[in-house]
């Protein structure tokens, strides 16, 4: 019986989960580690660490190359991870998953292999003001090379997309909409389905930045009908440099090659080459085989918890954190309603600069992020150079939120507020 069947959504056994994460046993100085930076990278359960070690210890060979048993095992495990990831996000076919280093590489892949081929002068790319730099800069470069124009959906004061002018922003000129599935600084969950349907009405494709979405919220790309979804493995319990790009098969097939070299070819002649089939057309050279194999174990882990339960746990802890931070006198950026947001909570505590706050909290064993979070458009919108950010995952507890809030008093002591 799976864990999902065993218990209803919202009832993660966090103590049991924590026991799977070796790093959560460590201390910072003499304080237990309180890890509140999963939006930057998640911690890894023993199952994932073991899967990567097991691959190297028992199955290591290059995938799709050798004709011997080890190579067959490696290939099978690598392709098994692809099929698993496809199923996890509701993709119809493993071939719709291209393995990449993560969301940044995935977005660049689309910006090079799709945008540079498809965009003409005057075409428009519609982004939002809450995009991560990795969903802005690749489009700026593509626009520079093609003469396309970037437009942006603005934000409301409470951290939502301001869709009041969508009709003017999303037009027949729009060829691509790039939107985050969940803001990494504000936590906002944009209305993806509404945006995707509206984009398709005008004939635009939609790329969803899934860096923060896929690890935290149940995702079904078939129901969403997005054209691309970028996936970061290391933010969903997997190793760094694991992850991928989902794309609709017909779109991927029409795309140009991206990185080129071994394995992505069909035939090579002196003056030209022909391409391998999707997804191999996009997988040049030796890939991060062990990492994608370990990502398979991460997907198993999340599957066993059940993504509905993961989401319910995070709604709870996010609501608790926002309430306690506000009570303590912090300014919280982004929506207050946990129904429209995830667990990345940006805040500013009184007059303490986020960098100072992060240093002081570290003395209490607390790991938060301080900075602009690769969200300079968001920082500018709300008139701050940086924020402190606490972000939560399956292993975080209400007690850790309490430790965070109590540690804020230390900052007051140091700065004599």
């Amino acid at each position, binding site marked *: 019986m799976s864990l999902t069947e065993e218990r209803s959504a919202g009832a993660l056994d966090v103590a049991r989960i924590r026991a799977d994460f070796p790093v959560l046993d460590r201390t910072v*100085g003499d304080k237990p580690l309180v890890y509140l930076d999963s939006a930057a990278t998640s911690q890894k359960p023993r199952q994932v660490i073991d899967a990567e070690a097991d691959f190297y210890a028992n199955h290591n060979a290059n995938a799709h190359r050798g004709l011997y048993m080890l190579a067959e095992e490696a290939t099978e495990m690598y392709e098994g991870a692809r099929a698993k990831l496809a199923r996890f996000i509701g993709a119809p076919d493993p071939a719709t998953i291209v393995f990449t280093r993560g969301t940044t590489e995935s977005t660049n892949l689309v910006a090079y292999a799709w945008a540079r081929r498809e965009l003409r002068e005057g075409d428009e790319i519609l982004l939002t003001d809450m995009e991560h730099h990795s969903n802005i800069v690749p489009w700026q470069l593509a626009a520079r090379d093609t003469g396309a124009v970037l437009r942006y959906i603005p934000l409301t004061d409470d951290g939502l997309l301001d869709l009041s002018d969508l009709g003017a922003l999303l037009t027949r000129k729009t060829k691509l909409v790039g939107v985050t599935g969940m803001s990494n600084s504000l936590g906002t969950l944009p209305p993806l389905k509404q945006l995707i349907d509206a984009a398709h009405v005008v004939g635009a494709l939609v790329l969803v930045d899934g860096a923060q979405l896929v690890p935290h919220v149940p995702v079904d790309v078939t129901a969403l009908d997005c054209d691309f979804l970028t996936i970061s493995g290391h933010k969903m319990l997997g190793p760094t440099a694991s992850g991928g790009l989902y794309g609709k098969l017909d779109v991927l097939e029409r795309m140009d090659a991206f990185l080129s070299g071994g394995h992505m070819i069909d035939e090579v002649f002196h003056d030209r080459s022909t391409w391998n089939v999707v997804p191999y057309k996009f997988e040049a050279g030796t890939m991060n085989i062990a990492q994608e194999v370990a990502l398979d174990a991460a997907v198993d882990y999340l599957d066993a918890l059940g993504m509905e339960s993961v989401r319910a746990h995070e709604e709870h802890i996010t609501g608790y954190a926002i309430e306690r931070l506000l009570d303590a006198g912090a300014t919280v950026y982004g929506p207050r309603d946990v129904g429209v947001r995830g667990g990345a909570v940006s805040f500013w505590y009184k007059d303490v600069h986020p*960098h100072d706050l992060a240093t002081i909290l570290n*003395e209490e064993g607390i790991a938060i992020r301080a900075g602009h979070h690769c969200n300079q458009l968001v920082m500018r919108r709300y008139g701050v150079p940086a924020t402190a950010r606490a972000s939560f995952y399956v292993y975080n507890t209400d007690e850790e939120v309490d430790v965070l809030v109590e540690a804020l008093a230390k900052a007051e002591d140091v700065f004599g507020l």
Partner: protein
Amino acid sequence: MALDDIYKEVILDHYKNPRNKREMPEASLTCSRNNPLCGDEITVFVRAEDDKVHEVSFVGQGCSISQSSASMMTEAVAGKPVDEVQQLIADFRSMMAGDLDPSDDEFGDLVALKGVVKYPIRIKCAVLSWDVLQEALAGEGEAAGSSPH
């Protein structure tokens, strides 16, 4: 408490009461920079003539380390010949790299920033204004009077 190493009284004093934190319309050199890690930004204004730095001021936003370092810097370099200022910039960098252990006599208030060396990620905060000053002196900065980005 380990935090005393970094948040010394003199640092907090410069943070809360920054010296020479103002624009300087008569500056002969200015330079702006931001710290891409944290979004902090700083503009340094320099009035220099005849190979002498007469006056330095700054504006910007930042953490206690970057702001106090900038404040102390404006006091430490005012009135010094440019070559001495260049030497002080080099010495300050050496201190922040852990290669130089200056005394209070040589370094004054700046010695307080030595504790930041134990917090490697914060060293950039301490050095930011000094980098900007050096760029301004090298003439790499924006022309005087132009607004920071």
